[in-house]
């Protein structure tokens, strides 16, 4: 750990406004195709739970595409598709409530970490997450042979009784950082993308360094269309949603 500066009072504590890693999602471009959902699940060894369980609110995907409705037929409109994953809050409400430090803040990556093997399953973090993005392993879900051949060795396979959530594919971030370090340079913009951004056919999900003002994601996050989910709660989320019609200036 890189010698964290420990603040004395809450008011003093302020992580860099923008954080280190961030995401910008253009809701005008998102077509709701669920490629991100599938990609995330494949990358992160997310189990499938079956019809009954998934219908009972136990689907395990780390990422969901939301949509609501406005109006009534024929003036009915679907609200723009909105992929919602862990917002990697700078002041994450989930973190302080865990009694055993199973969800903590990474000082280096400025991400919200879930430590599976420390988790005892109180599920308080999930209750306190205003974005409802945490999923709990209610059971050891069956993955019959030979499906486990596909397990990504970079990602822990979680057992029952632990909480999990989107990690921004931290395994990929680490790989890119290691690579960059071995070449004596910084990670360049576009070098690393989590599975969802990588798969997104519409290029609606953009990922990158927030502390680099020149990166695509930084620019998009500062765009006039950018909003943060439940901004008013002061959680300092790292995912910016671009609302309204795209204007193409940063594509």
């Amino acid at each position: 750990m890189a010698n964290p500066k420990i603040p004395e009072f809450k008011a003093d504590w302020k992580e860099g406004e923008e954080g280190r890693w961030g995401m910008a999602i253009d809701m005008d471009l998102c077509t709701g195709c669920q490629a991100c959902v599938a990609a995330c699940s494949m990358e992160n060894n997310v189990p499938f739970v079956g019809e009954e369980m998934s219908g009972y609110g136990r689907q395990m995907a780390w990422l969901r595409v939301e949509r609501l409705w406005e109006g009534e037929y024929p003036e009915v409109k679907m609200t723009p598709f909105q992929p919602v994953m862990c917002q990697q809050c700078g002041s994450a409400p989930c973190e302080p409530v865990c009694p055993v430090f199973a969800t903590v803040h990474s000082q280096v990556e400025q991400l919200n970490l879930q430590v599976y093997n420390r988790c005892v399953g109180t599920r308080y973090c999930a209750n306190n997450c205003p974005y409802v993005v945490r999923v709990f392993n209610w059971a050891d879900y069956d993955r019959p042979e030979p499906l486990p051949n596909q397990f990504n060795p970079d990602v822990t396979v979680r057992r029952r009784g632990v909480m999990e959530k989107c990690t921004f594919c931290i395994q990929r971030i680490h790989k890119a950082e290691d690579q960059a370090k071995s070449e004596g340079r910084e990670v360049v913009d576009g070098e690393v993308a989590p599975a969802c951004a990588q798969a997104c056919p519409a290029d609606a999900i953009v990922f990158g360094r927030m502390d680099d003002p020149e990166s695509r994601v930084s620019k998009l996050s500062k765009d006039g269309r950018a909003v943060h989910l439940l901004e008013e709660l002061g959680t300092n989320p790292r995912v910016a949603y671009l609302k309204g019609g795209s204007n193409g200036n940063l594509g």
Partner: protein
Amino acid sequence: MTNKLSRRDFLKLASLGAATSAVLTGCGPASRYVTREPYTKMPEYNYNGQSTYFATTCRECAAGCGLVVRTMQGRALKAEGNKHNPVNLGKTCARGQATLHGMYNPDRVQSPLKQARGNNPTDTDWDTAISIVAEALNNPADTAFLMGLAPDHLFDLVTDLCKAIGAPAPIRYGALGMFEARATLGEASRAVFARPDMLFFDIANADTVISFGANFLETWVSPVAYTRGYSQMRRGPGGKRGRLIQIEPRLSQTAAKADEWLPGAPGSEGLVAVALGKLYAEKKFGSAPTAFEAADINLAAEASGIPLEKLEHLADLLAEAEHPLVIPGGATLAQENGLETAKAILTLNALLDNPGKPGGVYFTPANPLSNKYQRAATANEMAEFIGKMNSGAIKTLFVHGVNPVFELPKSLGFEAALAKVGQVISFATFPDETAMLADYILPDHHGLESWGYQRVVTGTGQSMVSGAQPSVAPFYNTRATADVLLAAATKAGGKAAAALPFKDEVEFIQDKVSVLVGAEGGFYNAADLPAFWALFQQFGGWWKNDSSLGVPPQTANAISKELKVSAAKPEGEGEFHLFVYPSPILAEAGANKPWLQETPDPTTTVMWNSWIEINPVTAEELGVEDDDVVTVESAFGVVEVTVYKYPAIRPDVVAIPFGQGHTAYGRYAENRGVNPANLFGTTTNGAGDLAFAGMKVKIQKTGKKRPLSRLESKLGVYGIGMSEEH
């Protein structure tokens, strides 16, 4: 991890990988062209913690998207998009992502099986299997091949084989081909642009797109490529956001992304198209050309239910646009008047003067391997083929890459005809419905274990062929169908052996792609075949750097030809139009993949089952609620399906997604949901495509309930469970 892989197994697997593969990046462990090197330097895929990536082609649909499969120590871990492949440029859809769930599926066919039409399956060996195939090849006149839309190399091989031995040419079929009504579009193209080609719609550069039910963000032709096109259109050149208007009876995922969704009545699209043409021409030029002169705007408004003002508004939009484009979707053409509608829409494009211009309509580029456009068989062609089966003229039927028992409308009677065929040999990787009715299942490798290539029909302006190579060693005792046929041809001798003098599949593919060695304008150039072959595997195919879209001929005469369009006459009786659309997540062959089953439908968020979308007002009239089971009855079949009160569907239309309702196809697909193709009739349009969107059905309440698994909260999204008053 539940996988109990012992160290011994692991070493076996690792050494198998090592012994059978090339060191060159891009050649898979199953390569039979091994450059052996001493183990002073271990092959990279044997390093602990090191991944090896193989470029290949996605086989979940026929679009030809490039994949890069990440493997480690002989296992495939993740399918990712191949960023070089011009079709998908590194992107994938959900089905492509889940392709590994097909390969590592617990229910695959694991070895060649002999069975009495699904009963008493017993293992057999490949030598026996090859002799049986060889025997069939000795009787070419009684032999028929039914093939899927992918892979192309096998289709080419079978075509060559059939030509050589004098068997009828192989027939290709795929449910997506039917849902896209590709033949109709081709026929209309012949009529309007004088060439029966697949067309390319340049959505990316258009600024106003009116789509007549083309679900190009979901399954239509090449969804990943068109999604990219959509994305570019929205970000338009110079920051000008393109506009999308969708006309279709239910709000699809594509319509959800449109700026305006107009719920036009099914079968009225042609009328709307000509009306738009007339209004547009009058606004723009003062008078309408011959093609649109006779259009009755009031009739169009009345038949479609789209108010007159809206039509005028659309015409305004078209008139204002610099790059207007109209697209005909599959369901729009799958009407009894579908061909006329297609012609009307293409003629409207001609009127908009966009063919061959940015943001307009193009011919797809000529393919480097074959410039002939091989489309899927139409319903008429399939009916003819089924008639042949029924007559007993086919003694041996080979089936590969398609599941006609499931994918063909039941009304065509394929299953019954299958009983009249002497011997059915299926090359299915998966125990699907057709394979269950076969005498032999001689399983092909899964797509990610296979060699091959796919000609890219559309999706990119670049002429290209997408290459496939194994990313892992075959997991089971399967064998490449091409190898089986080659071995059988050798065994059969004679013309077959002479026509296919190849040692194996790879040699055949190399022979085919050798025409590209030294070809100009390619993404890479290679002087000789080994170098070309290495690069072909490394990049996952070959393509030209520059776009080579075909420009349709000048269109003055197209708009001067009279268009005769009337409202479609629906087939069958009943109060409701049936609207069947391929599930964007499952499509025709995704139901066996558990994660696809669990991926929520984009519009309804339903998982793991089928549903029928009914407008809430209609549902109230019928007295049905969410999760009630209703029977849907057409003249050709009945299905029982659960109600989803869908707020954005015409009150006179009900919609059922296609993709579920398997009676075989593995544990995740079996006995789950319904197959709406069982309701389809037999009416075809002028091009021979099934008029599946012109059906009328009756709906009856059953009193049963079967809750749907949804991701959304009914409470939060629809307020169900909370009374109105505060």
